[in-house]
C-alpha cells in the first residue's frame, strides 16, 4: 500500500506538489493524469525516494519512506519496479542480459536467474528474443524488455512513467495488455500518462493533478471528467 499524507514538495519557490493526500491499495491499477508540470513526475521521484518532501509523510508497505536512512534506499527501491518512457536499456547488453543485470544487482543465484529471466521474457511475450540487442528490437519490444526488467525481482509495485509515450496506438495497447496481466497477478500498477484514449478505455482509477494538487480521484474514471466515451 502506498500512502501520501499531506505531502508538499517545493523546488525553490515553486510548489511541485502541494498537500497531496491519497492512498493506493495493494493490487490496484491507478492512472495519474494531468498537464505537464502538474507534479506527476514528482510523485514518482517521491516514491523512489529520489527526492524527499518538505512536508508530510509517505508510507509504503507500512514503512515511512521519508524517514528511511540512506542505507535502506536500495532495499526500498527493489520493492518498486519502474519503467520509463525511454526504456533506458543498456545498448551493449542483449535483452536477456539487460534483465539479468537487475538480478545481478540483488546478487541472485545463477539458478534463480536461469529460471526467472525466461519467465519474465515469456510474460512480456519475448521468449524468443532474449539474444537480441536493443537496437534490433522495435520500440514496443524494447519497452517490453524494460517491463520485464522491472518485474524480474518480483516487486510489489510497478511504476510506469508514460510507458506508451513513444509508441503507436496498436503497440501501446500491447503494452497495456501486459500491464493489465501483471496487475491481475497481484502487482500494484501506477501509471503516469497523457494517453487519453488508453485511460478512457481501461476504466481504472484516475488521479487527476493540476498545479500540484489533486483535482479529481475517481474509481473507474476517465481522462477528463466529462470525457467519457
Amino acid at each position, binding site marked *: 500500500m502506498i500512502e501520501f499524507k499531506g505531502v508538499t514538495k517545493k523546488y525553490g519557490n515553486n510548489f511541485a506538489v502541494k498537500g497531496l493526500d491519497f492512498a493506493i491499495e495493494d493490487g490496484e491499477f491507478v492512472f495519474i493524469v494531468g498537464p505537464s508540470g502538474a507534479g506527476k513526475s514528482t510523485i514518482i521521484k517521491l516514491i523512489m525516494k529520489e527526492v524527499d518532501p518538505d512536508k508530510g509523510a509517505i508510507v509504503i508497505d507500512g514503512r515511512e519512506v521519508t524517514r528511511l536512512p540512506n542505507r535502506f534506499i536500495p532495499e526500498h527501491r*527493489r520493492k518498486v519496479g519502474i519503467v520509463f518512457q525511454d526504456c533506458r536499456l*543498456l545498448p551493449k547488453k542483449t535483452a536477456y542480459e539487460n534483465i539479468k543485470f*537487475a538480478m545481478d*544487482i*540483488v546478487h541472485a543465484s545463477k539458478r534463480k536467474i536461469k529460471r526467472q529471466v525466461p519467465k519474465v521474457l515469456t510474460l512480456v511475450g519475448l521468449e524468443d528474443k532474449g539474444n537480441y540487442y536493443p537496437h534490433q528490437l522495435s520500440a514496443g519490444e524494447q519497452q517490453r524488455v524494460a517491463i520485464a526488467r522491472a518485474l524480474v*525481482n518480483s516487486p510489489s509495485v510497478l511504476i510506469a512513467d508514460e510507458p506508451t509515450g513513444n509508441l503507436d496506438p496498436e503497440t501501446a495497447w500491447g503494452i497495456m495488455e501486459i500491464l493489465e496481466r501483471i496487475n491481475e497477478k497481484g502487482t500494484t500498477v501506477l501509471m503516469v500518462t497523457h494517453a487519453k484514449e488508453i485511460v478512457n478505455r481501461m476504466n481504472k482509477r484516475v488521479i487527476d493533478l493540476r498545479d500540484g494538487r489533486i483535482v479529481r480521484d475517481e474509481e473507474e474514471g476517465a481522462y477528463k471528467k466529462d470525457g467519457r466515451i
Partner: protein
Amino acid sequence: MGAFSYTVRQAFSQIGRNKNMSSASIFSITAMLLVVGLFFSIMVNVNLMAKNAEDQFDTISVYLKDTVTAEQGMELAEQIKMIENVADAQYLSKDDAMAIMKERWGENGYLLDGVPSNPLPASVEVTAVALEDEDKIVQELNKFDAVDEVRFYRDAIEKVMTISGYIQKGALAIIIILLIVSLIVVANTVKLTVHAREEEIHIMKYVGATNWFVRGPFFVEGILIGLISSILAVVIVGFAYYKFTELFTPRFLILFNSGMVPFDFIIQNLIIIFVALGVCIGALGSILSMRRFLDA
C-alpha cells in the same frame, strides 16, 4: 562470494572496455612512480655516501715522509697519543694503507692490482675525542718533523651532511607533489569512465543497487590500475638501476671512495613502496571521483 567475484569481473571488463582511459592512467602512475624511484635511488645513495664520508673521514690522517721508518712511525704514534684530546693514534704502513683501500673497494679491489708501485704514503691515523677538537690537535701535529702533510675533513664532512640533508628534503618534497598530481590524474580518469557509464549507474540505482555495488567495480579498477602501474615501475626501475650499478659502481668507488647501494636493497624497498603507493593512489582516486556522484 558471488558479490565479490561479480565486482572483480566487472572491474576487469571495465578496464577492457575503457582501454584508452585505463592505459592513460597506467601510463601516468607509472611515470610518476618512475620519478619517485629515481629520487628514492638518489636519496639512499646520497645517504650512503654521506654515511661513508662520515665513517671514513672522522679521523685525522697524518701522512709521513717516505724517509720515515716503521719504527719511527710507531714511536711517533705513541707520542701523538699523549697530545691532549687525542683518543687514539695508529701507525699504518704503506702496505696497510693499500690493504685497507682494497677492502673498501670490495669486489672491485682487483682494479688496484694493476698499480705498478704502491703510491700510498705511510700514515698515523688520529682519532679525536670530539670533532671540535680537531683544529687544536692539527696545530700540534704539524710541529713534528716526520710529518709530510696533515689532512682532516671536518669542514668537508659538515658540508656533505648539509648538502645531503637538502637533497633528501628536496627529493621528499618532489615525491609528495608527484603523489598529489597522480592522485588527481587517477581521480579524473575514473570520473571520465564514470561519466561514460552514467546511464548504467542511473539504472543500477533505480533497480536498487547499493552504493558499494556501483562503486565496487570502479574501486577494484582503480586498485588494479595502481597494481599494474607499480609492477611496470618496479621492472623498469629495477632494470635501470641494475644496469646503472653494473656500469658505474667502479667509477663511484674512484670518484667518491664509496660504493652504490646494492640492487637487492633498492628493489626490495621499491616493491613495497611502489605497490603501496600505486594501490593507494588507485583506490583513493576512484573513491574521490565517485563520492560526489553517488550522494543522493
